[in-house]
């Protein structure tokens, strides 16, 4: 069995990248690959077999990979992306792109963010064995058309089936329950659409036909803010609470202005709840209900608040769409195929295998890490050690 190491910034509950890593790791063995995961931060939920803390320095990564005979290193997030060109001198590497939010949505850090994207286009993607994106949108957004696409799955969400007609009829007497799930707090508001959700609440929350709810990681002040607007706010929920929240909603709205995939949107639909999202990011790939404006959302909320039969049909449409498109088994099999291709990459194949080739690549690698001074220092140290041993 071959072995790969997935490097990611966090393995914590509530993070999409963590779900992706864990689901792939659980299924890749059936496809001939063992996937270890190295992360900067790990919570108690993910700590354990196959998940290790991994500092973002080359020596630690190389040491781990040599000790564990890793064949392919996969970076899922920064700061590991930036290490791949160096690591590529020892190992096959893959940039597994989940994308970065559009810099133009962050007025204060736009230039810095743009620089980060540009750096990857110039200094990372050309120097790795393979680039894989999580959606067609990401492939276009990162500016790397030759990237392959492996879509995520949604079947980590318990399949409770479509909501029965009777449930919609029963709910018909109460206000339409509309909600969203996102990281709360205004640090997130640049692209997550918090303002849009809030304006929807203000325009529709008071008429008694619609009640709003929000769930996410945040602070007590966030809860107070939303409660003051009449919104039912759930902070830092467990996975079980999250599943039940998504199922209990009548309509899930993602007001986000950029998403590389949007796992919560897909999870809501997989829970039997219709999911609405704007025509931005990868939403056209992850929901059949793509909204071209806030007016489209308002129209549907007004309609569904009185016509629960239409809501039932839309919910079923959403459920069938995601449950047929997004399967982790399929994702794992496609991902394994990408790892296989990465292993078979012919770039410098023979050259890499020769002793002199390996030595040259190591020197080049050290040069990229330490520069001329670092290499000279290392060489001198070796010479001194050698000298010391002999005398």
């Amino acid at each position, binding site marked *: 069995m071959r072995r790969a190491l997935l490097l990611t910034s966090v393995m914590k509950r509530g993070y999409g990248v963590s779900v992706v890593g864990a689901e792939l790791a659980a299924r890749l063995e059936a496809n001939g690959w063992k996937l270890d995961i190295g992360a900067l931060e790990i919570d108690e939920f993910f700590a354990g077999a196959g998940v290790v803390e991994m500092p973002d320095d080359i020596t630690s990564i190389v040491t781990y990979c040599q000790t564990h005979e890793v064949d392919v290193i996969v970076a899922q997030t920064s700061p590991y992306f930036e290490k791949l060109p160096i690591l590529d001198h020892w190992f096959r590497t893959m940039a597994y792109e989940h994308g970065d939010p559009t810099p133009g949505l962050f007025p204060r850090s736009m230039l810095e963010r743009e620089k980060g994207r540009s750096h990857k286009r110039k200094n990372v993607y050309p120097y790795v064995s393979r680039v894989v994106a999580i959606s067609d949108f990401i492939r276009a957004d990162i500016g790397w058309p030759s990237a392959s696409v492996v879509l995520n799955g949604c079947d980590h969400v318990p399949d409770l089936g479509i909501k029965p007609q009777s449930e919609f009829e029963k709910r018909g007497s109460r206000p339409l329950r509309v909600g969203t799930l996102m990281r709360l707090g205004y640090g997130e508001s640049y692209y997550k659409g918090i303002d849009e959700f809030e304006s929807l609440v203000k325009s529709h929350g008071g008429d008694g036909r619609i009640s709003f709810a929000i769930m996410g990681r945040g602070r007590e002040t966030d809860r107070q803010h939303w409660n003051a607007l009449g919104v039912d706010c759930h902070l830092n929920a467990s996975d079980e609470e999250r599943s039940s929240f998504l199922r209990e909603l009548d309509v899930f709205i993602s007001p986000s202005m950029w998403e590389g995939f949007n796992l919560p949107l897909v999870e809501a639909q997989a829970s039997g709840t219709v999911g609405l999202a704007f025509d931005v990011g990868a939403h056209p790939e992850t929901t059949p209900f793509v909204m071209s404006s806030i007016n489209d959302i308002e129209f549907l909320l007004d309609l569904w608040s009185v016509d629960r039969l239409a809501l039932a049909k839309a919910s079923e449409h959403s459920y069938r769409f995601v449950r047929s*498109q997004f399967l982790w088994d399929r994702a794992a099999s496609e991902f394994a195929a990408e790892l296989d291709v990465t292993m078979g990459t012919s770039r410098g194949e023979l050259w890499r295998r020769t002793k002199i080739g390996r030595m040259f690549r190591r020197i080049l690698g050290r040069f990229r890490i330490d520069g001329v001074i670092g290499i000279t220092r290392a060489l001198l140290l070796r010479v001194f050690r050698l000298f010391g041993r002999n005398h």
Partner: protein
Amino acid sequence: MGRFFGVIQQLDPYREANNLERVRRLVAGRRELNLAGEMVDGLSIIVLNKDRPDLLRALWSSFDALRVLADTKGIPIELLVGDTGSKDPEALELLRSPPQRCRVTFDMSYQFSRCNNDLFELANHSVSLFMNNDVLFDANPMGLLDCYERLTADSELGAIGAVLYFEDGRIQHAGIGFLREVGVWGLPFHPGARSSLAYPEGLFWPIAAVTGAFIMVPSVLYRALGGFDEGYAKECQDVDLCLKIARSGRRIEVGSIGPIVHLENATRVSGEEDWLDRALFLRRWSSFAEEL
């Protein structure tokens, strides 16, 4: 599954639209349609025209015949014509002397969605029929009233289109479907077009979408949906509207209502494909169309 990265590069929905542009378009929002007054029962027919006095003459006489029939049935009707820059003296003369219950708006700058929406804001009736100037209904004006009665009798019905014929009797349009081939997945097409199929008159059947050359919609619904989306420059705005109607849970039907002729492209050059419109349409609707 319809993946977006197709074999026709022009149809790649992300190629020409970066995310910031999409956000700007979204934030700008869509047009709110304002009505001059309260809508009353009846039929408003909305037609855009440029030159072509032959078509105008046919429209005037067909509308006269329709008005007589509508009066006998007690259905109020009106014709709203938008002139998008006629230069032909004969056409201008005809436009200056329209038939009864017809109003002409001059000096419109052609953009299908915007012009139709502008005329809609002048409409007075509960049902609106958007029709091309090259659709000839003189052989059976009664068919239009059949559509009106069918639409007003069924609240589940969101739009009605008509089977349209070429002059030689072949089918021009009998509804719109969606391609299911990789690379063009979700792209609208006209099933049965250019065939010589004969549909019995009076037959209506459900369909995914109908052409904007002849589409009858409840005015309240049209207004609530924001009318034809003005983000489309030339194409796909009709199918976009139909899918919005379908998304609201209502049915769309196409009906055989007699020999309604569509000359097709009488005022627009054939082969003027707008790939950006098509890519935009695919981005918004190809996932929805998968379950249709």
